[in-house]
Protein backbone atom coordinates (compact mmCIF):
# COMPACT_ATOMS: atom_id res chain seq x y z
CA UNK A 1 0.00 0.00 0.00
CA UNK A 2 2.75 2.45 0.92
CA UNK A 3 4.23 1.60 -2.48
CA UNK A 4 1.05 2.66 -4.31
CA UNK A 5 0.21 5.70 -6.41
CA UNK A 6 -3.25 6.75 -7.49
CA UNK A 7 -3.75 7.70 -11.14
CA UNK A 8 -6.60 9.77 -12.58
CA UNK A 9 -7.50 10.06 -16.25
CA UNK A 10 -9.55 12.94 -17.65
CA UNK A 11 -11.65 13.86 -20.67
CA UNK A 12 -11.04 11.94 -23.93
CA UNK A 13 -8.24 10.00 -22.24
CA UNK A 14 -10.60 8.81 -19.51
CA UNK A 15 -13.02 7.53 -22.15
CA UNK A 16 -10.26 5.83 -24.13
CA UNK A 17 -8.83 4.18 -21.01
CA UNK A 18 -12.29 3.05 -19.99
CA UNK A 19 -11.67 4.08 -16.37
CA UNK A 20 -11.29 7.33 -14.45
CA UNK A 21 -8.84 6.21 -11.82
CA UNK A 22 -6.77 3.29 -10.58
CA UNK A 23 -4.17 2.46 -7.99
CA UNK A 24 -0.87 1.02 -9.19
CA UNK A 25 2.25 -0.27 -7.46
CA UNK A 26 5.53 1.55 -7.86
CA UNK A 27 8.28 -0.50 -9.56
CA UNK A 28 10.78 1.29 -7.24
CA UNK A 29 10.47 3.82 -4.37
CA UNK A 30 11.32 6.73 -6.65
CA UNK A 31 10.94 6.77 -10.44
CA UNK A 32 10.27 9.32 -13.14
CA UNK A 33 6.79 9.58 -14.64
CA UNK A 34 8.32 8.30 -17.88
CA UNK A 35 9.70 5.16 -16.23
CA UNK A 36 6.45 4.47 -14.42
CA UNK A 37 4.41 4.93 -17.60
CA UNK A 38 6.79 2.65 -19.51
CA UNK A 39 6.37 -0.01 -16.85
CA UNK A 40 2.56 0.27 -16.87
CA UNK A 41 2.36 0.22 -20.67
CA UNK A 42 4.36 -3.02 -20.80
CA UNK A 43 1.72 -4.68 -18.63
CA UNK A 44 -1.42 -3.01 -20.04
CA UNK A 45 -2.23 -3.28 -23.73
CA UNK A 46 -5.08 -0.71 -23.63
CA UNK A 47 -2.92 1.86 -21.92
CA UNK A 48 -0.08 1.20 -24.34
CA UNK A 49 -2.33 1.79 -27.33
CA UNK A 50 -4.06 4.86 -25.88
CA UNK A 51 -0.83 6.55 -24.75
CA UNK A 52 0.86 5.80 -28.10
CA UNK A 53 -2.05 7.58 -29.86
CA UNK A 54 -1.89 10.63 -27.54
CA UNK A 55 1.46 12.36 -28.10
CA UNK A 56 0.45 15.61 -26.35
CA UNK A 57 -0.62 14.15 -23.00
CA UNK A 58 -0.09 16.29 -19.91
CA UNK A 59 0.70 15.02 -16.43
CA UNK A 60 0.07 16.44 -12.96
CA UNK A 61 1.70 15.21 -9.76
CA UNK A 62 -0.24 15.99 -6.61
CA UNK A 63 -2.51 18.36 -8.54
CA UNK A 64 0.37 20.43 -9.94
CA UNK A 65 1.37 20.37 -13.61
CA UNK A 66 4.58 18.37 -14.04
CA UNK A 67 6.70 16.83 -16.78
CA UNK A 68 7.39 13.21 -17.67
CA UNK A 69 10.91 13.71 -16.25
CA UNK A 70 9.62 14.60 -12.78
CA UNK A 71 9.87 12.10 -9.93
CA UNK A 72 6.93 10.09 -8.58
CA UNK A 73 7.01 8.90 -4.99
CA UNK A 74 4.79 6.41 -3.13
CA UNK A 75 1.52 7.99 -2.06
CA UNK A 76 1.55 10.57 -4.85
CA UNK A 77 -1.58 11.44 -6.81
CA UNK A 78 -0.89 11.29 -10.55
CA UNK A 79 -3.16 12.50 -13.33
CA UNK A 80 -2.93 12.23 -17.11
CA UNK A 81 -5.02 14.31 -19.48
CA UNK A 82 -5.16 15.95 -22.95
CA UNK A 83 -4.24 19.63 -23.42
CA UNK A 84 -6.68 21.72 -21.40
CA UNK A 85 -9.52 23.64 -23.06
CA UNK A 86 -11.06 25.91 -20.44
CA UNK A 87 -12.44 29.42 -20.58
Amino acid at each position, binding site marked *: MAQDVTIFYFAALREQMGRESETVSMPAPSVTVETLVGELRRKDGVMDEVFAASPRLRVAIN*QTLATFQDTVRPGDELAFFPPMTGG
Partner: protein
Amino acid sequence: MLRVLVQSGPFEMGAEMDRLSAGSDRVGGISVFMGQVRGGPDGLESLTLEHYPGMTEKVLTGLAREAVRRFSLIGCTLIHRVGTLVVGAPIVFVGASSAHRAEALAATNFLIDRLKTGAPFWKCERYQDGRRVWVEAREADDKASALWG
Protein backbone atom coordinates in the same frame (compact mmCIF):
# COMPACT_ATOMS: atom_id res chain seq x y z
CA MET B 1 -10.06 40.60 -2.50
CA LEU B 2 -9.88 37.26 -4.24
CA ARG B 3 -13.01 35.38 -5.24
CA VAL B 4 -12.57 32.01 -6.94
CA LEU B 5 -15.51 29.70 -7.63
CA VAL B 6 -15.97 26.46 -9.55
CA GLN B 7 -19.66 25.66 -9.79
CA SER B 8 -22.29 24.03 -11.93
CA GLY B 9 -24.90 26.73 -11.39
CA PRO B 10 -25.05 30.12 -13.09
CA PHE B 11 -23.50 33.29 -11.68
CA GLU B 12 -25.12 36.69 -11.38
CA MET B 13 -23.16 39.14 -13.45
CA GLY B 14 -24.62 42.27 -11.89
CA ALA B 15 -23.89 41.09 -8.37
CA GLU B 16 -20.35 40.10 -9.35
CA MET B 17 -19.69 43.50 -10.88
CA ASP B 18 -21.15 45.26 -7.85
CA ARG B 19 -18.85 43.23 -5.61
CA LEU B 20 -15.79 44.37 -7.58
CA SER B 21 -17.08 47.93 -7.71
CA ALA B 22 -17.89 48.24 -4.02
CA GLY B 23 -14.70 46.57 -2.80
CA SER B 24 -12.86 49.79 -2.07
CA ASP B 25 -13.27 53.51 -2.78
CA ARG B 26 -9.80 53.33 -4.40
CA VAL B 27 -11.29 51.40 -7.32
CA GLY B 28 -11.32 53.51 -10.49
CA GLY B 29 -11.82 50.81 -13.11
CA ILE B 30 -13.41 47.39 -13.38
CA SER B 31 -12.82 45.12 -16.31
CA VAL B 32 -14.83 41.99 -16.90
CA PHE B 33 -14.88 39.22 -19.46
CA MET B 34 -17.66 36.69 -19.74
CA GLY B 35 -17.50 33.66 -22.02
CA GLN B 36 -20.61 31.77 -23.07
CA VAL B 37 -21.50 28.75 -25.19
CA ARG B 38 -21.50 30.00 -28.80
CA GLY B 39 -24.11 28.60 -31.13
CA GLY B 40 -23.78 28.48 -34.87
CA PRO B 41 -24.69 26.84 -38.14
CA ASP B 42 -22.86 23.63 -37.16
CA GLY B 43 -25.76 22.67 -34.88
CA LEU B 44 -24.00 22.76 -31.51
CA GLU B 45 -26.46 22.00 -28.75
CA SER B 46 -24.40 22.00 -25.57
CA LEU B 47 -20.94 21.75 -24.04
CA THR B 48 -20.06 19.49 -21.16
CA LEU B 49 -17.24 20.84 -19.05
CA GLU B 50 -15.18 18.30 -17.16
CA HIS B 51 -12.57 19.36 -14.64
CA TYR B 52 -10.09 18.01 -12.08
CA PRO B 53 -11.64 18.79 -8.69
CA GLY B 54 -9.05 20.06 -6.26
CA MET B 55 -6.46 20.94 -8.89
CA THR B 56 -8.90 23.33 -10.59
CA GLU B 57 -9.36 25.42 -7.45
CA LYS B 58 -5.60 25.43 -6.80
CA VAL B 59 -4.78 26.57 -10.33
CA LEU B 60 -7.47 29.27 -10.40
CA THR B 61 -6.46 30.64 -7.01
CA GLY B 62 -2.83 30.71 -8.15
CA LEU B 63 -3.82 32.54 -11.33
CA ALA B 64 -5.88 35.11 -9.42
CA ARG B 65 -3.00 35.70 -6.96
CA GLU B 66 -0.55 36.13 -9.82
CA ALA B 67 -2.85 38.66 -11.51
CA VAL B 68 -3.28 40.66 -8.29
CA ARG B 69 0.50 40.84 -7.83
CA ARG B 70 1.36 41.51 -11.45
CA PHE B 71 -1.27 44.19 -12.11
CA SER B 72 -1.67 45.67 -8.59
CA LEU B 73 -5.31 44.70 -8.55
CA ILE B 74 -7.67 45.63 -5.74
CA GLY B 75 -10.12 42.82 -6.50
CA CYS B 76 -10.07 39.76 -8.70
CA THR B 77 -12.92 37.32 -9.41
CA LEU B 78 -12.74 34.05 -11.31
CA ILE B 79 -15.84 31.92 -11.73
CA HIS B 80 -15.84 28.85 -13.95
CA ARG B 81 -18.82 26.60 -14.49
CA VAL B 82 -18.66 22.85 -14.99
CA GLY B 83 -21.18 20.30 -16.19
CA THR B 84 -23.48 20.53 -19.20
CA LEU B 85 -24.20 24.01 -20.55
CA VAL B 86 -26.50 24.76 -23.48
CA VAL B 87 -25.92 27.32 -26.23
CA GLY B 88 -26.10 30.84 -24.79
CA ALA B 89 -25.22 29.75 -21.25
CA PRO B 90 -22.41 31.58 -19.43
CA ILE B 91 -19.25 29.48 -18.90
CA VAL B 92 -16.70 31.76 -17.33
CA PHE B 93 -16.55 35.12 -15.57
CA VAL B 94 -13.24 36.96 -15.15
CA GLY B 95 -13.20 40.28 -13.33
CA ALA B 96 -10.50 42.67 -12.13
CA SER B 97 -10.64 46.00 -10.32
CA SER B 98 -7.81 48.50 -9.96
CA ALA B 99 -7.12 52.17 -9.34
CA HIS B 100 -6.47 52.90 -13.02
CA ARG B 101 -8.01 51.36 -16.10
CA ALA B 102 -4.89 49.94 -17.76
CA GLU B 103 -4.21 47.42 -14.98
CA ALA B 104 -7.74 46.03 -14.81
CA LEU B 105 -7.93 45.70 -18.60
CA ALA B 106 -4.53 43.99 -18.87
CA ALA B 107 -5.35 41.64 -15.99
CA THR B 108 -8.57 40.50 -17.66
CA ASN B 109 -6.70 39.72 -20.87
CA PHE B 110 -4.02 37.87 -18.91
CA LEU B 111 -6.51 35.83 -16.90
CA ILE B 112 -8.61 34.66 -19.81
CA ASP B 113 -5.52 33.79 -21.87
CA ARG B 114 -4.11 31.71 -19.01
CA LEU B 115 -7.44 30.09 -18.16
CA LYS B 116 -7.82 28.74 -21.68
CA THR B 117 -4.75 26.53 -21.57
CA GLY B 118 -3.54 26.42 -17.97
CA ALA B 119 -6.50 25.29 -15.90
CA PRO B 120 -7.69 21.66 -15.88
CA PHE B 121 -10.95 22.01 -17.82
CA TRP B 122 -11.96 20.03 -20.89
CA LYS B 123 -14.91 20.70 -23.18
CA CYS B 124 -16.95 18.04 -24.91
CA GLU B 125 -19.35 19.33 -27.57
CA ARG B 126 -22.69 17.75 -28.28
CA TYR B 127 -24.43 18.41 -31.60
CA GLN B 128 -28.09 18.20 -32.59
CA ASP B 129 -27.37 15.07 -34.64
CA GLY B 130 -26.06 13.36 -31.50
CA ARG B 131 -22.33 13.60 -32.25
CA ARG B 132 -20.01 14.13 -29.28
CA VAL B 133 -16.65 15.80 -29.94
CA TRP B 134 -13.89 16.65 -27.47
CA VAL B 135 -12.66 20.18 -28.20
CA GLU B 136 -9.04 20.23 -29.39
CA ALA B 137 -6.66 22.71 -27.81
CA ARG B 138 -5.93 25.58 -30.20
CA GLU B 139 -2.33 26.53 -30.92
CA ALA B 140 -3.39 30.19 -30.98
CA ASP B 141 -4.48 29.85 -27.34
CA ASP B 142 -1.11 28.39 -26.33
CA LYS B 143 0.62 31.29 -28.03
CA ALA B 144 -1.63 33.89 -26.39
CA SER B 145 -0.87 32.39 -22.99
CA ALA B 146 2.87 32.15 -23.67
CA LEU B 147 3.02 35.86 -24.55
CA TRP B 148 2.51 36.69 -20.86
CA GLY B 149 5.86 35.05 -20.05
